[in-house]
């Protein structure tokens, strides 16, 4: 970086710092933005969050790299890093983060036409409309190329029939970006990328009850749904290419989760006890906790390292590797947490269990999805083997 550029960076840092100081509501300090992202009611109920979101939106800093005409701030990568650093430093978070900003937005910027961008990007940047992702189908979990949902060209519109599954938040979403089959004679080459208004007649979203009790995921049924021709992104049958790019954004965002490591040791001392040498009083559990925690620490260093390398032009070819390390480490950690709680970690509800115990149990059950969604553990290993390591077949 030249000195002049560094100076610019310094100036921008001062500006960000001052703005945050003036605008970030202190009541939100240290809260994870995910809380509001995944719970529309919590978001609506918190006036400080509403205020914070509005201020960030006006500044364009929820989607800082987007052009200003789409609701962004047209910042460069270096400035975005400064912004993120400064937010982290004071315990602030991006209140605009959503499926729309993380996945659809970048995709539309790359493949959408100007009209689509103007119609859809500003409401995403303003967090006014919620999007869901209609990719998976009952018969095609990790194998997207087999999808069956049909979109037939009816001249002035597409007629969509079929079923999606594992659609996050579909019951609360305004729009859906979906993969549909527009040519049955080809596999990957017969798929298109369509934007569907969830209020269209014939669309129905039914929540799925997961083993954790969560109803965040839905089945979505399309029965003779009419979709305007303009809602096709890119070319007909170009959907596979677009989806692959979009899934890259998804994988990036999944592996980017940078939660701080909270040591499980104090909890174990409390629940399991301490031996005469000051150790957690269950050697086998302790040994597994230690190994998991060491891997976790090395994993966090890996995320930081990849981040540094990416800033310096490194490749992101190891995203699948990172995701599998992450899911394995976090799933193990969730298991350990429940094991530390012992009998108290096995409750579903009710006064016999403390609230944080019940939360740990649900989180453990939910964690089983980490190695399934966003490309299963097995698919990620296939990708690492073939794409990163160059193994044949």
């Amino acid at each position, binding site marked *: 970086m030249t000195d002049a550029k560094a100076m610019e960076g310094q100036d921008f840092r001062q500006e960000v710092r001052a703005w945050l100081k003036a605008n970030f509501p202190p009541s939100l300090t240290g809260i994870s933005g995910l809380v509001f992202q995944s719970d529309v009611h919590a978001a609506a109920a918190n006036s400080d969050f509403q205020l914070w979101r509005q201020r960030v939106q006006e500044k364009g800093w929820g989607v800082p790299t987007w052009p200003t005409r789409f609701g962004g701030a047209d910042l460069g990568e270096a400035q975005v890093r400064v912004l993120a650093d400064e937010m982290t430093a004071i315990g602030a978070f991006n209140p605009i983060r959503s499926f729309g900003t993380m996945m659809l937005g970048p995709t539309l910027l790359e493949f959408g036409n100007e009209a689509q961008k103007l119609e859809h990007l500003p409401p995403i940047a303003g967090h006014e409309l919620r999007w869901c992702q209609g990719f*998976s189908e009952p*018969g*095609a*979990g*990790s*194998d997207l*190329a*087999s999808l069956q949902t049909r979109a037939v060209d009816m001249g002035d519109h597409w007629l969509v029939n079929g079923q999606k*599954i*594992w659609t996050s938040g579909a019951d609360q979403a305004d729009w859906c970006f979906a993969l549909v089959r527009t040519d049955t004679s080809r596999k990957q080459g017969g798929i298109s990328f369509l934007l569907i208004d969830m209020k269209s007649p014939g669309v129905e979203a039914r929540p*799925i*009850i*997961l*083993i*954790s*009790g969560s109803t965040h995921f839905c089945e979505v049924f399309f029965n003779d749904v009419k979709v305007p021709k303009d809602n096709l992104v890119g070319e007909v049958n170009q959907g596979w290419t677009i989806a692959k790019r979009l899934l890259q954004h998804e994988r990036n965002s999944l592996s980017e989760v940078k939660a701080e490591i909270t040591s499980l040791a104090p909890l174990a001392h409390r*629940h*399991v*006890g301490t031996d005469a040498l000051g150790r957690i009083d*269950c*050697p*086998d*559990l302790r040994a*597994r906790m230690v190994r998991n925690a060491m891997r976790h620490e090395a994993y966090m260093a890996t995320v930081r390292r990849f981040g540094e390398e990416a800033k310096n032009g490194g490749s992101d070819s190891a995203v699948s590797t990172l995701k599998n390390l992450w899911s394995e480490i976090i799933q193990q950690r969730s*298991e350990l947490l*429940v*094991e530390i*709680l*012992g*009998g*108290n*970690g*096995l*409750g*579903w*509800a*009710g*006064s*016999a*269990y403390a609230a944080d115990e019940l939360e740990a*149990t649900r989180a453990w*059950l939910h964690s*089983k*999805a980490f*190695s*399934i*969604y966003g490309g*299963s*553990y*097995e698919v990620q*290993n296939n990708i690492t083997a073939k794409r990163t390591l160059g193994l044949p077949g």
Partner: protein
Amino acid sequence: MAVLNDEQAMLKDMAAEWVRDRMPVTALRALYDHGGGGRSDSLGHDPAAWAEMAEMGWSGILVPQEYGGSDFGYLGMGLVLEELGRNLAASPLLSSALVAATALRLGGTSDQKARWFPAIADGSAIGTLAMEETSHHALEKTALAATASAGGWVLSGTKRAVQDGMIADFAILSARTSGAPGEREGLTLFLIETGADGLTREAMDQIDARRPAIYTLSDAAVGADAVLGEVGKGADLLDAIVDRANVGLAAEMLGNAAQAFETTLDYLKTRVQFDAIIGSFQALQHRAAQMFGELQLTRSAVEMALTAIDEGDADIPALSSLAKATAGETLHLISSQMVQLHGGIGMTHEHDAGLYLKRARVAEQCFGSTAWHRERWARLRGY
């Protein structure tokens, strides 16, 4: 499978058939509410099914013949528990017909035996063990106080996670008659009826839809004849009971794991992705082969321990911990892989995988976790 005699083989076949016909996994599902918790009105088991089990004589397998049982032995009991485990059948068989019956066999007075053995055998009474006070198995941490009184003892304190606690008619309960929490000395076992004055119970809504209970005792009085074994020396007796409880539970876990594996294997043989049956993918084949190997180790450890109990082997403590820990590790692996290999559908409450996963963790933890039993085995074997 262990080599069975004709009667054992017949018992096993009968149990397998009954479980298949009468206790599919949907029977367990009836104990769950729509959202995945236990139904608010649930007893944690199906009384009608329990009556049939008693009718078939399973509740009397460990009751001596003079008290109306068949004295058929722990291997026989293990065979039934394994079959029940296959379909996650919820019943008080383990709590009452194995654990409570074992307590009476090992420590009951003749009056206690005469009063309770026949009722255990015909299923008219359900017994259980009320032992844990903290989140982890640790009998020495017992704080529930038993104070000598004119006519016997007065009990005060709390027990958690009493298995089948809401339906039990009586409990074998550990209490401290001397010493302080942390000491093995000073424990005494009592037989207390759950209807006793001063005993209240609260159901726990557990992930596996069973209904363990919290027992709160406030100056609950029992007679001097309520004691099992020797006053103040209850720890060894309790260990002996828990050893047998663990082997029975391990047999059930073996059944859980075997069925979870077979269900998953069937799925691998039918599910198509990437234009192939997923069971043709080598990585999944090798994982299946590995799980099959773990199942072999588990069956051997469980059957060895069951046989050791029937033969009065001196090595029962270590073999019990070996069985429980091996079953725990295997079931942990297989229940997790059952979810993983079923993919998204395995994550739904609608699918059975989650039910196996939830029951697995409860069983792994009950009567001492896998880690606890590894440590116990290690101490017994001099590590």
